[in-house]
């Protein structure tokens, strides 16, 4: 589903964020990506999202070489990927419902379908009764679940998460991880960047470890 073929990324100031990374992630996999901050986890996710382009090497998503996706193709590419951010990236001037609905509005669904799907997604993360709430009134864990609902509402094939439990206590973190496992079980490819080694190693999934831009563990399934 996601293939990195000898991918290197060097930023302008001569800092190598990724060096010769090769990895293959299968369709039904849930994979953790670990490493110290600055080891290249975010860069790897950014390359999948086309927020950055690799300096060398190829990135393939769902069989397609991302080098062939031009600026006009980027929005469509991103619609196939759900993303969960550490800082939620919610829009605080609109309700939970409108936040979750955003990807569907962008994709041009009609409002009945949007209502149905948003409620389904909110139900899945256990927030169905909070759809009219404003994000500021929610706790950190609830905000993160809104972010997850928004990531999955468009039924993406791939779900990426960048430190999704970064600000949460262990119990909440475990709960969030269980949600990701649920989505994985219904066929979504999930890639989670996390530095929480304790939590990650308790769950039995493949772990990729990056150190100074090199993949030092987990390159093969």
């Amino acid at each position, binding site marked *: 589903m996601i293939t990195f073929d000898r991918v290197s990324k060097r930023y302008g100031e001569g800092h190598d964020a990724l060096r010769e990374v090769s990895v293959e992630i299968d369709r039904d996999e849930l994979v953790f990506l670990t490493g110290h901050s600055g080891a290249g986890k975010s860069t790897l996710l950014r390359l999948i*999202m086309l927020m950055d382009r690799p300096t060398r090497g190829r990135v393939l998503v769902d069989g397609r070489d991302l080098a062939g996706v031009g600026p006009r193709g980027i*929005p469509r590419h991103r619609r196939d990927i759900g993303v969960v951010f550490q800082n939620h*990236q*919610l829009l605080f001037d609109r309700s939970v419902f409108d936040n979750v609905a*955003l*990807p569907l*509005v*962008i*994709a*041009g669904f009609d409002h009945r379908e949007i209502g149905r799907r948003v409620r389904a997604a909110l139900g899945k993360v256990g927030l169905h009764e909070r759809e009219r709430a404003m994000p500021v009134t929610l706790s950190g864990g609830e905000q993160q679940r809104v972010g997850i609902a928004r990531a999955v509402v468009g039924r993406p094939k791939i779900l990426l998460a960048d430190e999704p439990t970064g600000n949460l206590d262990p119990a909440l973190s475990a709960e969030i991880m269980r949600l990701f496992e649920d989505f994985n079980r219904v066929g979504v490819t999930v890639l989670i960047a996390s530095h929480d080694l304790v939590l990650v190693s308790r769950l039995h999934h493949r772990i990729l470890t990056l150190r100074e831009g090199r993949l030092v563990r987990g390159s093969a399934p």
Partner: protein
Amino acid sequence: MSSRREGASRSRTLLAHRLAGWLQHHRLSAADSLLKVLDNPFASVLTWLVIGIALALPVGLDQVMDNAGRLGASWDHPAQLSLFLREDIDGAQAQALAARVAGRADVEAASFLARDAALEEFSTLSGFADVLASMPQNPLPNLLLVTPAPGLEDAALLQALHADLAALDEVDEAVLDMAWLQRLRGLIDLGRRAALVLGAMLVLGVVLILGNTIRLSIESRREEIVVVKLVGGSNAFVRRPFLYTGLWYGSGGGLVAGLLVWGALWYLGEPVARLAALYGSSFELAGPGVMGVLNLVILGGLLGLAGAWLAVARHLSAIEPGAGRA
């Protein structure tokens, strides 16, 4: 075969579905941006006023020139000759002279204005009644107002008539009242050009003001734009609400401009009518009318779109989730 037909019908539904979604987002963007504009009434009213005043200046000037042009054209006989008669010519002689002059082929009419009647009219209208009453004798001469024949527009023929009449015995002085009309027409032309130049500059100003307003609104929604782009929003999708914001600001400004011009002309209407009555004319100021105001609203809307497009083209592409690495 059937699967192909199915595919075709599905792609048709897909197209219809996408069109519906596109229309829906237009509706949403229009309503949302209008709500945002109304949500911040103080800033919005200021913007509307700035645009309204900027548009009202050239449009108002143009309207005044329009009226002045109408005023000039409303004189069927653009030129008039005033014959001031000698002191010793009495009313009867003057009447006889009027009949003689009116008999000429190149004269349409000649009317006699007796000195006493003129004094009376002057003292009631000028407010100098006391001063005039204290004078030992009437300072005004008898006057003959001569209207040239309608065909006599040519300046040379008018000059010839003027010379003829001035040479008459009874006439002390003959004044050809044409210069003021030429000056008026010259002034109107100048005024129109000034309105055009002023208009061009202020229209550019309006576009820039709106562009800047939209730029600020883009800046204040930077994070939202990043999120929208991250979840797959295209540039067109991100652009839409800002273009609508420009449209609302612009057309609101156009409406303000229309109301300002209309209000100003209404305010001027009464004194102008009074002044016209003094000149014995039934001239009335013409306002911009409903269509004029509507045109201003449309013009404002187009300028708003232009300004928003300028800002969006320049600043939106700079906001990418990739820029400024986390």
